[in-house]
């Protein structure tokens, strides 16, 4: 089981309470699709993803960004058992959606860049970055757990 220090729990709680999921979610997905364009393969039913402007304006991208953040909220609320909380999500991504699990890591990176850009250096300090990236690494690992 993952051990969290009080400082790390505080960092995650502070960041999460200030994150606007309607803003960060869509942005993270837009970053993913622009910076790592092969990920568009998973969103062939989303319509126009041909340019960064089209991606930024795409309502399905925005909606899915919010869905992803909803998933992250489950992890925030279950920090001591993220693996169990994510079991069904992991099975879904493996068996139904067939997502290459390396993409979880890459999406996590995009979320972190968005959070850094939002909060700036005085909030997203090295200590907060450590806690946040540790948290996302646990989420990424939990999502990959049911793959075989």
């Amino acid at each position: 089981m993952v051990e969290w220090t009080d400082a790390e729990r505080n960092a995650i709680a502070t960041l999460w309470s200030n994150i606007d999921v309607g803003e960060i979610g869509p942005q993270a997905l837009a970053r993913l699709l622009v910076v790592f364009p092969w990920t568009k393969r998973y969103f062939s039913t989303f319509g126009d993803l041909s340019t960064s402007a089209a991606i930024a304006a795409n309502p399905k991208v925005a909606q899915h960004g919010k869905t992803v953040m909803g998933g992250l909220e489950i992890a925030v609320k279950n920090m001591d058992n993220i693996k169990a909380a994510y079991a069904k999500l992991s099975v879904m991504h493996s068996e139904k959606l067939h997502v290459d699990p390396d993409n979880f890591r890459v999406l996590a990176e995009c979320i972190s860049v968005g959070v850094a850009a939002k909060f700036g250096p005085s909030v997203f300090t090295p200590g907060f970055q450590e806690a946040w990236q540790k948290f996302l690494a646990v989420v990424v690992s939990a999502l990959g757990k049911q793959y075989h």
Partner: protein
Amino acid sequence: MVKWTEEERRIVREVWEKVDIDEIGEQLWARALIVYPWIERYFGTFGDIFTTTAILNNSKLAALGKIVLRGLDTAVKNMDNIKPTCASLSRLHYEKIQVDPDNFRLLAECITISMACKLKAELNPQVQATWQKFLSAVVEAMNSQYK
């Protein structure tokens, strides 16, 4: 050789112009050492590098931060020749300093986060894509002399 569009060249130059070498140089080591603490292994002679405060007050790390960013500046000025430009640095890191090359990627990530903090909304998806393409070219060049 990496191919760059005019737009990508412009973006890399414009982003780089906004970088304060002292500011980002400090931050990138603080982030790297706190988020990836095994990196401390490479800094046995640097004194206290174990808390954010200590790292930010450490003059050896500040100096090294500037050196790293000056290296990046050279890459910005030689975008069509990043690999040969970095060749001797790569050999130095392989033969003399013996750095695990996976750390180049991690340091690049910390540079991107530091710049996201600084540039905020300006580091939009398009700019991020170009900037990360540039850093990937640098990371690959730093790996090039490893066998």
